[in-house]
């Protein structure tokens, strides 16, 4: 497998490929959204505006399937950002990769003599990948969701939010805590594992050489589908968690 360049910056170790990927992903997401709203029109929307409005409607439907309709609005922006950012991130690693070969050690990007010797003096450095194929990034996203969910739960639904840890009996507190922890963990791992597995398989198929081309095309097509599904799932689950913690259904209990 490839090595990823790591830039030591004082006490920090910044992984360059992830930094590049996140930056590109943010820029692409923002550019697409900005292009879509370039000539906003009430009566005669452009094709891009129509597309983005379709996404808004889609996300709106998705959120409203998780919580009452009148609570949807504040989360629409969050859902839109999540689904667009994750989908674009998932696709980012699919079309190509940037790999450089080196026979020398570059201490400044974390390529040491030992690593070089380990691989027999020949090392491939990957500069390009999906940001979501990195567990650290998906963990970051899951952490944001975790913070939002529990902040909103504490703020908007304090009594029921605190009470739910002791439901149905106080003995269940450890189980409820495990559930609380497992939610963001599964959120992060599911996204990471799906996208990472996709990229690993692409790398594996590439080793086949020319024979692998049809497989590569098929798998890349499938990866687009997986990327869409995972973006949808992440957003959907986020909204479900928010709904569980923050929205108290009056006639539910």
């Amino acid at each position: 497998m490839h090595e990823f360049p790591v830039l030591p910056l004082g006490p920090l170790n910044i992984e360059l490929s992830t930094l590049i990927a996140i930056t590109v992903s943010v820029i692409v997401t923002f550019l697409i959204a900005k292009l879509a709203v370039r000539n906003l029109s009430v009566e005669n929307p452009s094709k891009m505006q129509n597309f983005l409005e379709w996404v808004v409607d889609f996300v709106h439907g998705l959120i409203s399937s998780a919580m009452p309709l009148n609570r949807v609005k504040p989360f629409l922006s969050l859902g839109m950002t999540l689904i667009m950012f994750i989908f674009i991130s998932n696709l980012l690693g699919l079309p190509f990769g940037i790999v450089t070969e080196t026979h020398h050690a570059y201490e400044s990007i974390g390529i040491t003599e030992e690593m070089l010797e380990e691989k027999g003096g020949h090392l491939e450095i990957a500069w390009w990948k999906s940001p979501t194929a990195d567990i650290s990034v998906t963990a970051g996203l899951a952490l944001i969701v975790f913070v939002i969910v529990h902040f909103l739960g504490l703020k908007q639904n304090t009594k029921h939010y605190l009470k739910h840890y002791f439901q149905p009996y106080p003995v269940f507190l450890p189980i409820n805590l495990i559930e609380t922890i497992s939610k963001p963990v599964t959120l992060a791992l599911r996204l990471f594992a799906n996208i990472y597995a996709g990229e690993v398989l692409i790398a594996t198929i590439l080793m086949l050489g020319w024979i692998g081309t049809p497989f590569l095309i098929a798998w890349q097509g499938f990866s687009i589908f997986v990327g869409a599904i995972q973006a949808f799932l992440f957003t959907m689950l986020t909204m479900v968690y928010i709904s569980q913690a923050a929205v108290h259904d009056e006639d539910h209990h």
Partner: protein
Amino acid sequence: MSWHWESTVIAMVAFGVLYWLLSKYAFGPLFDVMEKRRQLVLEQMNTAESSRKAAEQQMEDQKAALQQARKEAYEIIEQARTTSSKQADDIVQTAKTEASRLKDDALKDIESEKNKAIAALRSEVGGISVKIASKIIEKQVDEKSQEQLVDQYLKEVGSK
């Protein structure tokens, strides 16, 4: 694949920035426009509803007006019919009176003409008779018997 907490922080910051940027520059205006369109559609639907009601109202009015006009036309025709029949009766009546008057006049005229003719004839016949008689009895009759003869003759003519 190794864990880098720096990547986590970068991802969180990047997501936060992206969320802020998108909300401010993309989704905010987009949601505004969508809301505006919703209002526009609502407004247009209301307008359509009210104009439909107005059209219905107008239709009703026109129907009523048509009904009224029809009724009036019927009345006018009825009136014309009664007037005309009355007029015809009048005309016939007048004609009848006129005709009878003319007939009476004619009868009177005939009567008076007849009387005149009789009078004229009587005097004519008287004269002629006198002449004839005087010619016949010029020499044989004296004054007295002549007068007697004339009177007798006149009596005969008058009784005819």
